[in-house]
């Protein structure tokens, strides 16, 4: 049996959290922005954005586990959430 180091275990836990929780937050922000950005009647925009959100979520989860380190995964998810979140906030203020 190979024993797993605590460092490895911590990395897995951090990535899992980044994928499930961070990924959901980032997906929510991205799909909300997409819904606003689509030049369609809102019933169509909300449908397409929600349909695509699960594709986005899947890609984020896979990227979090594929990228080099847990730190990179967290930085990526957090930075894109912050950036898109800021855009969403500004768009919300203008509307």
């Amino acid at each position, binding site marked *: 049996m190979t024993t797993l180091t605590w460092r490895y275990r911590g990395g897995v836990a951090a990535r899992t959290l980044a994928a499930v929780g961070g990924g959901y937050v980032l997906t929510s922000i991205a799909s909300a922005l997409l819904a606003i950005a689509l030049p369609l009647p809102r019933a169509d925009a909300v*449908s397409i954005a929600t349909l695509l959100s699960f594709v986005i979520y899947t890609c984020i989860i896979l990227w979090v586990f594929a990228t080099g380190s847990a730190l990179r995964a967290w930085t990526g998810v957090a930075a894109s959430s912050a950036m898109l979140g800021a855009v969403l906030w500004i768009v919300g203020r203008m509307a």
Partner: protein
Amino acid sequence: MKDGLRQSMAWVHTWSGLLVCWLLLLVFMGGTAAYYKHEITFWMKPELHKAADAPSRVTPAESATLAVRELQQRAPKANAWFLDLPNERNPLIYASWTNPPKKGMSREERRAAFRTQNFTLDPLTGEKTAAPRDTRGGEFLYRLHFDLYYMSAIWGRWIVGIAAMFMLVAIVSGVITHKRIFKDFFTFRPKKGQRSWLDAHNATAVLALPFHLMITYTGIVTLMFMYMPAPTKALYGSEQNTMFSEVFPNAERVKPAKQFAPLADVAPMLLQAERVWGAAPSRVVVTNPNDANARIELHRPAGQQLSNIEPTMTFDGASGAQLSGPKPMSTSLDARAAIYGLHVAHFADPLLRALFFVCGLAGTAMVATGALLWGVKERQKYAKVVANGGKVGFGVRLVDALNIGAIAGLPIAFAAYFWANRLLPVEMAERTNAEANWFFIAWGLAALLAQIRPTRAMWRIQLTLGAAMLAGIPLLNAFTTDTHLGVTLFGGPGLRPVATFDLVVLALGLLLGWAAWWLGRKAKKQAVAKQQANPAQQPPLEAA
């Protein structure tokens, strides 16, 4: 994760699959059965079989007229009437109604009342059929596969949704990690232990890959506005109901005028719809019957489009004049409905439906072989420990036990549900709940016994029991009803679902029986080999 993309994806595939596979087995089996939920319900109500034997001699327009006449006597002041007319999948006329809710009635009470507000007509005579036994039939299995049971539907839907998301991740990462996807499809190396399970897992997964990917994604889409509310929040704020009314175009609800007006004859409306669609309506909904604001809505039968929202034709119930229906949907709304429609497959003709069923079974096999593969692989790490008389790790033991409880135990639970339907007294109180309880009693016992002794012998016992219970259903049916295979195979087309049900459960039972036999033979061979090699040692317990 520390290595290349393929290795990290293999890791994601293993763990996202393993963590939810036992729940996915339940969802896959329940959902696969749900493709035939009407047929299962019909099988579970043997009192209706007699009426379905002879082919229907009345036209849909006449059926509707018959049912409306009966409804006028039974529920002239109802909120709405619902009629399901005979078609290929349904040999009888089903009618039900909703009453204006009484003050202080809880949701449960309203639902209980609704379950009593229905009747079934024999399309041959127009007479009411014998009252069927109280059962939820295939509806229980359908609901089970996304609502679960013994918890609120919302909880069940979140749990199943999260499991489905894991499954989606498992499928995509599984494809990425799989470099020989085409070649492996043609590769099967039987009787080679781990390699064989891997090949079986690859074959069942790759064979029906488009189906697995489709059914998982579209399954999430059926409840997508609940799982991902952010886009709705962004465009509609807190007015979620406005979104629903815009995305799901229903004919607008008309309030009753509280003024009596005799209901127009429905027969000419059905004939007109049949002329336009080339097929008779399958469903008639009458809202505010006998009121000046009565509306009659006819639904086109499924089978001509992917979308699950069938076109309707609306008539003024007082004057009989046709009204303009809901406006046609935009392309993206139609696309959403088509993606939803792909999941529920109302459009499928008998052959395509059978193909969906087989793909569902392949999905079940994919999940099962994947779960087994983990156990087999992990066990190898303990090969030396076991050889020296030690025990396998806690994780392997737990997974083995869960595998037995789910893969061998669930067929027992399904069979127990059908046995309970035939054996519980017809007049029993709370009969529908008792049937469902037997599903979980059987499953619970199987899972518990598997936890106590997760051995190869347990595999064989449970597989054999499941095989006997499933294959025994046609026999049970022969002893408890008049519509056994000897009758149904030679009866009218209305009895075909009953015959098919018996034959399919028999075939599934034989399949499980074969698995049990194969396991037994393998155990014997290994025992003989071990004894020859080392007569003093007991053969170690090992799962398949």
